[in-house]
């Protein structure tokens, strides 16, 4: 079998997912025996723009130019993989979609200057082009990346376990900081796979992997309120990395509109 041709490209984000791949120090050389990396601007010069057997895309789409670029890249890629919170769910910057974007810009540049930076909604990759697979976490879980490449090489289809972070946390016999210490934790509704990293350090789950399938947000919020969270606390906890996660978005918009009629989701048509 010919070596798969791999591209790794980044749109708007912190470049942490690309860096995570460079952090595969122990596996990198073996990996290079199995695949050809033809495009990886962060790591090398002399890049080829496709065609790609697999294209890994980091970051969110924040302007028209990027939207055109990703559409062109999609045409050159057999398989397109969204990598990390920004590419999958919009990332932290998607919080902006829930605020008056125009006001933020005008405050920064004045009315005239704001025109240089047109209002544009932060979009995860799947809002612009079809995505074949998602690799989660902020930054991307490098072992999940490695697993994905292995599956592709042997011709299988990788699947995500549909389990909440709590499942892995319990298996590690961690003390439950949510139930026992009243520290608000997103573990019950967030997709497992990180090995309950934050709770294992005595810190609450921050929610960077997005929702599990059919996540019980209402029950989660009821429990948060019972543990002393205010309505503002709840919105802040739910809306962090995953502004464009459909489950988060549906839940928040419904809940907020009940609470406050003036709260609005950013307008898309204004450019």
């Amino acid at each position, binding site marked *: 079998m010919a070596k798969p041709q791999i591209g790794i490209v980044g749109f*708007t984000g*912190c*470049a942490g997912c690309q860096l995570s791949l460079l952090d595969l120090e122990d596996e990198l050389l073996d990996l290079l025996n199995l695949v050809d990396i033809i495009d990886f601007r962060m790591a*090398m*010069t002399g890049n080829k723009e496709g065609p790609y057997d697999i294209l890994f895309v980091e970051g969110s789409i924040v302007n028209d130019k990027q939207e055109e670029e990703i559409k062109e890249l999609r045409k050159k890629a057999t398989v397109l993989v969204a990598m990390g919170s920004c590419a999958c769910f919009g990332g932290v910057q998607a919080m902006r979609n829930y605020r008056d974007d125009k006001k933020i810009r005008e405050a*920064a540049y004045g009315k005239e200057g704001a025109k240089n930076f047109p209002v544009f909604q932060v979009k995860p990759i799947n809002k612009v082009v079809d995505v074949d697979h998602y690799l989660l976490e902020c930054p991307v879980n490098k072992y999940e990346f490695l697993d994905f490449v292995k599956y592709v090489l042997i011709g299988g289809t990788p699947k995500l376990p549909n389990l909440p972070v709590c499942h892995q946390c319990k298996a590690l016999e961690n003390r439950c900081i949510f139930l026992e210490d009243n520290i608000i934790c997103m573990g019950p509704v967030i997709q497992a796979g990180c090995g309950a990293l*934050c709770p294992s350090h005595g*810190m609450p789950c921050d929610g960077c992997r997005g929702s599990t399938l059919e996540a019980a947000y209402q029950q989660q919020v009821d429990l948060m309120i019972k543990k002393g969270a205010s309505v503002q606390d709840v919105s*802040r906890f739910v809306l*962090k990395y995953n502004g464009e996660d459909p489950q988060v978005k549906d839940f928040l918009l419904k809940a907020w509109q009940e609470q406050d009629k003036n709260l609005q989701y950013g307008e898309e048509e204004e450019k």
Partner: protein
Amino acid sequence: MTVKKFHLEHICRVEGHGNLLVEIDGNKSKNVEMQIVEGTRFFEGFAVGRKYDEAINIMSRICAICSTSHQLSAVEALERSVSIVPSDQVHEFRVLLDHGENLQSHILHVGMLALPDFLGYDGVIQMVPKYPNEVKLILRMKRIANDLQALIGGREIHPVNIRPGGFGNYPTTRQLEEMKDKLVEFKKGTQTIADLYATLDIPQFKNKTEQLAVYDGKTYPFIRGDIKSLLSGKITPPEDYKKDFIKEEVKPYSTAKFSTINDGEIYYVSPLARVNINSKFLTDDAKALIKQFGMKLPDFNPFNNNLARVIELMHCADEAIEILDKYIMKPPKEDNKNFRIKAGTGTIATEAPRGLLNHSYDVNKEGIIQRVDVITPTAHNTNKIEDDVVKFTPKLTDMKDDEIELFFNMLVRSYDPCISCSTHAITIDLRRTK
């Protein structure tokens, strides 16, 4: 006279998206634009309204390579805002974590991003067949640096273990001992890298400009201190960074701001600035490298940033071993987790691997953030990069076009710009909206 136009689009082997436009007329540059074209994210906008303890994790997403610096700067500045005073032990473990990041970022830069230029390769991946041992050593050192970050911070990128007043949990004595052994190995590797760099042909170009670095008069500081100017000797407390000192302006071709000091003076921040300003506080083994490289301080050659990085590899490894030794003898105690918060302002100047970093916050008495201001190293340096191009261009007339292109690429890379950082460096002052 014909005008030659160089437009280096999407410069490789840097983090983020940046272009450099240079128009050369005869032997002079006519138009120079360092274009930072990374899409904007507006961190200073959406961090407003967040609680002080959540913002630590959010601010680190500004940049992956310096995520630890952003978290440490955020936690230290936010602690000042709400009047939490962390213990000495917390400070020392923060320094230890920060050194993990410095080692990681520097070995990534000198080993994987800069070295291919000097040896004539596209990237480290292409170096594997000819330099297998060097590449293996670099990967091993990078692994060790990441292990240190993961041990203290919980993860290599975007640490999860930092909270106001201390850490989630501390490593065991056994883990600290294992880490120490690895760092001793790291130091040996650093000497090998230093020997390699001592043989490289580094371009000799000087541009004497002001340089800034954090200074405390006692140590080689990364986290706490004032801002010292190298040439003028001026010392500015971190909270006065914008008071008649640093000024930012917007240029239409770039999403990053351009800054000057003292009304229009170009300056720069970098590992070299740190070595120039704080060299006497380096460890002995690090000082020995200055001699080995034959550097005369103060040094004004931006390409020597790479040598400064190697010197800091040695220094940070030494200091990390010292801190580990201390806590192997006397295991860390639990942090105090009960504190009452007050409203206030907190401003701090720290050193990210690529130079000076400013974080400033206003927090109200409920702990909700009201104002955020961040100036990142790359935003400090954009003017200086353009100035270098203008000053160096007349000396490049004998070079062929592709050599000039490589030279400019190497010049930009020598600043190790992390561009995703710099783009959010657009101040959004939400207080002005009303």
